[in-house]
């Protein structure tokens, strides 16, 4: 199993888009660290469902985002960080889709299989790792998106509220377009 190389991800090569990516990565790193640690502390059960998949590297890739996310759900040292897509890190399992699709999944408002059937969600690598992560997250009551938002108080909740409006609008627009 190849692992994402943190050093490699940080090597600066300098066209402008990459600079933006690097800057946004740097900005969100502390927030992501806080999110993953709090989720891990609050939901120790989550790791049971992951079984032996706690040290695998997941690449979560919101295609319309400036960066992707690298997740290693290790209960001893949980890792979630932003990585640049240009270094195309080799993950054990990759989940790819538009940001709002991924958010809907995390917000427990869309079914993962349905997103896969409609091709809004693309998965590759170790399929069992993906199924385990999906089932582990789905066993949390309510919505992880909401829980994360709550970590950041009223501003967090406001942002989630806005994002929800966006995905609901896009969803109904797409349904109309299909009909």
């Amino acid at each position: 199993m190849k692992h994402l190389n943190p050093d490699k991800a940080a090597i600066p090569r300098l066209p402008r888009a990459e600079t933006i990516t690097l800057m946004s990565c740097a900005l969100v790193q502390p927030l992501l660290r806080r999110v993953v640690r709090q989720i891990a502390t609050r939901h120790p059960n989550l790791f049971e469902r992951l079984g032996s998949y706690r040290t695998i590297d997941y690449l979560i890739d919101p295609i319309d985002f400036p960066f992707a996310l690298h997740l290693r759900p290790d209960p001893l040292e949980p890792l979630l960080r932003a990585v640049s897509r240009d270094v195309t890190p080799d993950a054990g399992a990759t989940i790819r889709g538009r940001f709002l699709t991924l958010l809907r999944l995390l917000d427990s408002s869309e079914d993962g299989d349905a997103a896969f059937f409609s091709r809004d969600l693309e998965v590759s690598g170790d399929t069992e790792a993906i199924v385990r992560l999906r089932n582990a997250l789905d066993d949390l009551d309510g919505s992880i998106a909401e829980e994360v938002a709550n970590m950041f108080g009223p501003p967090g909740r406001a942002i989630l509220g806005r994002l929800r409006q966006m995905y609901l609008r896009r969803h109904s627009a797409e349904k109309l377009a299909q009909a």
Partner: protein
Amino acid sequence: MTELICPAGTPAALRTAVDAGADAVYCGFQDATNARNFPGLNFTADELARGVSYARSRGTKVLLTINTYPPAGKVDLWRSAADVGAHVGVDAFIVADMGLADYVARAHPDIRLHLSVQAAASSPEAIRYYCKHFGVKRVVLPRILTIPEIRQIRREIHCEIETFIFGNHGLMVEGRCSLTNYLTGQSTNMDGVCSPASDVEYVQDEDGSMCSRLGGFTLDCIGAGEKAGYPTICKGRYIGSHRPEGYYAFEEPVSLNLSHLLPELIEAGVDALKIEGRQRSKSYVRTVVSAFRSALDDIRHGQTPNIADLVALTEGQKETRGAFETKRWR
């Protein structure tokens, strides 16, 4: 009153189903004793105990699925699943294996016995056998019967009838399928798996097409815009001597949806309607259970049911009424 039977793959899904109006939920343990032995899914004994108390306090029943076939030498695991279920107070066992049915009928005579669809009892004689010998109270019918055939069975047997109304549409006779084992070495009947994730691989191409493989065998390749299904052998695309272009030899990726046949099913004497999908998310459970709850309530009040559109949740985003509507399906 026709009952609505709902899937629960996790404790959170169980609570979701109860809250959405399930009359009963069905679930299983994290091992080979049930036919949805998928990674990261299902219940520990403690989780089941808490699930039972959550459901019971809200008037919902819990049915424990122990519906695979224990291979010789491993029978104890299945028996202890039943013992744990009895201990935490489940309302019924759903079983298929005769040896196990005989055991639970003797060891736990006070707990209802339901005959799993995995037993594939599709004739009155077969159903009577299980009722006579094991005291089966309800049979879950295979998804191969037309409504007139269900009505005929109803007339000839005395136990309750449960039929699937929504979800994955298995093509093969349940409990008689070794397709997965042929390609992977893991058995649907003995291990509770169907196309196990550990053996599934998705290969994405630059042009947006995607191929699914099981145990190294290509099951399907779909173009960029095409909808996807589950990577199961019975929904795969193959080349046949008369079909050099490749075709879905068994069935296209499609799900069962009988929402428009509910009144006919109830009229035919079906006692319980089952939603498939223990492997699905809380979001699926919430949406599908709510939709059927409100449809059944409408019917009970003599109104025409207003059925929500569930096509987005279906495999291949396509629906079928399968065998239920016409025998031409066969």
